[in-house]
């Protein structure tokens, strides 16, 4: 009723001020009709506060930490085969990172290791919604997204070990690699939010070539504080580019809790301010993540513009391997450990009899076997020759051919309004 009243009032104002204002009013009221869709089956509500005790300040958590774990939400789209494929990617994601942790302990990794533990559903089920012609730009914890996009565990291990055969030939680490030819992946940088306008630009380039594609990238609850996040998402919104932005709210930006990054209740609310749809999903529920990603990708391909999807979960390790995350209150770990995304999907598949215990064991053994081979190849492959550091700064001597990826750009002159 309240909404109707407001609309009636707007119309009156519009009438009294002529046609121009009416159109402005109608745009504004359209934007305000966006509501934030919430796919979750539970809505955890905790508060963190800094407490000073015995000369030290630490975080304490309050809220209901004993709630039972809900079932996964049935997907509107995924069938048995697809659910098992996503489950397999998530297992590979988790176990590859475990292998990296071991390689680190053996002194074979150069630098640190970054984990996506607790976030595998968000990485894998989101990237699973992309088609080959779509694009993706990962953040540091989206190693699962890279696997789904067609990179191997061997590629990622070689990145961490700085090998000559790594996708960046030793020049960068971790998830910092891409492929503009086959897999349509943009390499991230360490500064946060910068991929957002870049992926928007990818969609712009494709559109100039006559194709509406989905472009997906990620930002954390910490990274979304950056100015370029706003600039990029606003640009995509204004230009109606097919950006699918996953805001991975994993509660911690390094050691700073999300309460100190923003004060909206849900980051998905931000979507309203951009004039785009916002969606909330349980980031530990692969079905919810996939459904939201798929719907956003379809919207992108219909040229209707970007979507902001907030995935709520918790980062289950420190920022990187050196960080024991001792600042995180223990009860929070206990709460989220019960919501482990892989255990939840495994239980879902077993309950539905889509997977038997025997098939599950075989699947896990296959993943481990593949990882074993990848690990062996990566470990035994050579380091780059030192002098390779000096080459490749510029694209020269025909090292790359620049040509429109989706065909000749559509250059028809479109004059929208011509004044006589």
């Amino acid at each position, binding site marked *: 009723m309240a909404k109707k009243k407001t609309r009636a009032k707007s119309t009156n104002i519009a009438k009294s001020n002529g046609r121009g204002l009416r159109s402005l009013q109608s745009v504004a009221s359209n934007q305000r009709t966006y509501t934030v869709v919430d796919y979750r089956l539970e809505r955890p509500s905790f508060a963190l506060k800094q407490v000073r005790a015995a000369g030290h300040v630490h975080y304490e958590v309050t809220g209901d930490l004993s709630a039972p774990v809900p079932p996964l939400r049935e997907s509107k789209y995924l069938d048995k085969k697809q659910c098992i494929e996503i489950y397999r990617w998530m297992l590979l994601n988790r176990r590859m990172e475990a292998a990296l942790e071991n390689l680190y302990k053996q002194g074979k990794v150069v630098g640190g290791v970054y984990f996506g533990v607790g976030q595998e559903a968000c990485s894998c089920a989101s990237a699973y919604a992309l088609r080959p012609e779509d694009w993706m730009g990962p953040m540091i914890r989206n190693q699962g997204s890279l696997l789904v996009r067609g990179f191997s565990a061997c590629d990622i291990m070689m990145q961490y070990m700085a090998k000559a055969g790594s996708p960046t030939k030793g020049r960068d680490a971790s998830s910092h690699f891409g492929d503009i030819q086959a897999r349509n992946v943009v*390499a991230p940088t360490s500064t946060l939010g910068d991929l957002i306008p870049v992926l928007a630009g990818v969609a712009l380039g494709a559109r*100039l070539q006559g194709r509406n594609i989905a472009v997906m990238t990620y930002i954390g609850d910490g990274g979304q504080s950056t100015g370029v996040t706003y600039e990029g998402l606003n*640009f995509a919104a204004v230009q109606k580019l097919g950006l699918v932005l996953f805001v991975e709210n994993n509660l911690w930006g390094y050691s700073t809790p999300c309460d100190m990054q923003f004060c909206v209740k849900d980051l998905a609310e931000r979507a309203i301010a951009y004039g785009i749809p916002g969606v909330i999903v349980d980031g530990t529920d692969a079905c919810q993540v996939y459904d939201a990603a798929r719907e956003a990708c379809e919207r992108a391909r219909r040229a209707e513009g970007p979507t902001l999807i907030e995935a709520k979960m918790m980062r289950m390790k420190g920022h990187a391997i050196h960080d024991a995350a001792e600042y995180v209150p223990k009860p929070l770990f206990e709460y989220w450990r019960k919501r482990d995304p892989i255990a939840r999907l495994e239980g879902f598949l077993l309950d539905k009899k889509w997977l038997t215990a025997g098939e599950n064991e075989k699947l896990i053994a296959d993943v481990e076997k593949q990882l074993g081979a990848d690990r062996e190849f990566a470990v035994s492959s050579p380091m780059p020759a030192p002098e390779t550091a000096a080459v490749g*700064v510029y694209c020269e001597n025909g090292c*790359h051919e*620049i*040509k429109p990826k989706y065909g000749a750009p559509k250059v028809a002159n479109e*004059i929208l309004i011509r004044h006589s």
Partner: protein
Amino acid sequence: MSTVTYLEAIRQGIWEEMERDPSVFCLGEDIGIYGGAFKVTDGFIDHFGPRRVIDTPIAESAIVGAAFGAALTGMRPIAEFQFMDFIGCAFNQIVNMVAKAHYRWGAPAPLVIRGPSGGNVHGGPFHSQNPEAWFVHAPGLKVVCPASAYDAKGLIKASIRDNNPVVFFEHKYLYRRIKEDIPDNDYVVPLGKARVAREGRDLSVVTYAAMVYVALEAAEILAKEGIELEVLDLRTLSPLDREAIAQTVRKTNKVILLHEDVRTGGIAGELGAIINEEAFEDLDGPIVRITALDTPVPFSPPQEEYFLPKVSDLVREARRLKAY
């Protein structure tokens, strides 16, 4: 041949490249119906349409990021900065995302970032700067600073065709003050090649952009005293034409480095080092620097005049160096 301004030469260059190659497009603030703050893209939206001439929000990081993203799909974007002073807003995108892309992950970034720089127009601290040295210091970028209308057109066309990111500094003082006859046919001026703007036997002045005209004016005055200046216009600051720099020093044995950018960390320091490496034995006198002051660009005309290098500064230093 037709007589065109420096600004019109740039406009023609972009226009011709957009006609020639459908993957070239423009994005930036107020470049569409308004035609850009300085009217470089005046009429473009009518001819090429709003899909290829895109007015953006006031968001420099988004402009560069989107240009880079489009370049990854094989387009050749031209991103306009309303003033090059505002390039600081997009610094991270330029030096971390764009400049490193080819080295890190083999992604070519064929895009041009262009806009007006430079002082002597009483624009104050935020509409007068020469921030080119920031980008010379970032491997992966090319940096272009044309002085003549002929070069402005040939260099913008070469920049658009280049497979690397180019930061193209137009000098706003020259936009409408420089008029030249330039050929009507399609031509490019290669990046990385300097030109001798005036031949001379006694002293070399190595410079670029608006300071080329300061050097040429000083050369006229000094010629009357029998001092012949050679003026080397660098045209491109990255990559630098080391051979041309060494060659002029080998010819005259005395060199003055002149730029409108501030002194400390300016390109003159790098030029001095190159001369030291390439032509130390040929020097018959100290390397002399003439630059702007190490201050922000002041607003008030008497202060700005004091801040900028002048013809009288060059005449004085040339006489001193000649007598050394």
